[in-house]
């Protein structure tokens, strides 16, 4: 009996082993999600923005490069306009109040979803903070950018404009 049990256990492990999630990369279809906004006023669903180029940005209030990127992204969104482009940020602070405190001082105009349990970064396979995914009008990931430095905005702008022009 113990031999049969051992065999079954080994079989189960090898069945579930290949089911580990791999990171979303360029060419993959972006995972669809729906989450509450950080102020709990409404829900934001990625599907709503199909037909636009979308930047999905994972950030947290304890991440200094994330905090630098937010006003830059806000400025980028204002410059490009929202008819063909949108930013959907996902805040992963375990305590959402920390994010709200930051946003009270530095508000942004784009929707921010909250994910205190960290489900979405796991689904996306986020490897660093911050990480942003540029998604085309058909929901395909075209550009993945981890980290944030001053010069990154121009590269991102070029990628966005290239996708909008298609």
């Amino acid at each position: 009996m113990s031999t049969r049990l051992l065999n079954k256990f080994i079989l189960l492990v090898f069945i579930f082993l290949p089911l580990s999630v791999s990171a979303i990369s360029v060419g993959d279809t972006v995972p669809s999600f729906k989450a509450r906004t950080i102020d709990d006023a409404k829900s934001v669903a990625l599907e709503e923005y199909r037909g636009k180029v979308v930047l999905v940005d994972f950030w947290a209030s304890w991440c200094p490069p994330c905090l630098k990127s937010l006003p830059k992204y806000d400025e980028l969104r204002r410059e490009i306009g929202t008819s063909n482009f949108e930013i959907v940020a996902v805040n992963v602070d375990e305590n959402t109040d920390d994010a709200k405190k930051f946003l009270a001082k530095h508000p942004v105009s784009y929707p921010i979803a909250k994910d205190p349990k960290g489900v979405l970064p796991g689904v996306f396979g986020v490897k660093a903070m911050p990480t942003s995914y540029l998604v085309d009008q058909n929901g395909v990931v075209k550009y993945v950018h981890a980290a944030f430095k001053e010069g990154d905005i121009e590269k991102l702008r070029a990628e966005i404009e290239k996708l909008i022009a298609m």
Partner: protein
Amino acid sequence: MKLSLRIFFFAVVCMFTASCSSVNPWEHGILAKPEMAWEPDPLMGQLREHVYFAKEGSAGGYGAGGGGCGCN
């Protein structure tokens, strides 16, 4: 299945039950707190290191990886 093969697979399975764990990049919030830093007060840290060096005649030999926000 031969006993030796079963033992081999069992050993492989046991390797996956090791208790080491890693912190996901989006879970570094607590590690990023100032009180979690190896040295929350850099100036005091340098003073201590200097005193240690003066008394012991040696330096270094401490610290470890990890901690902080891990951001790029």
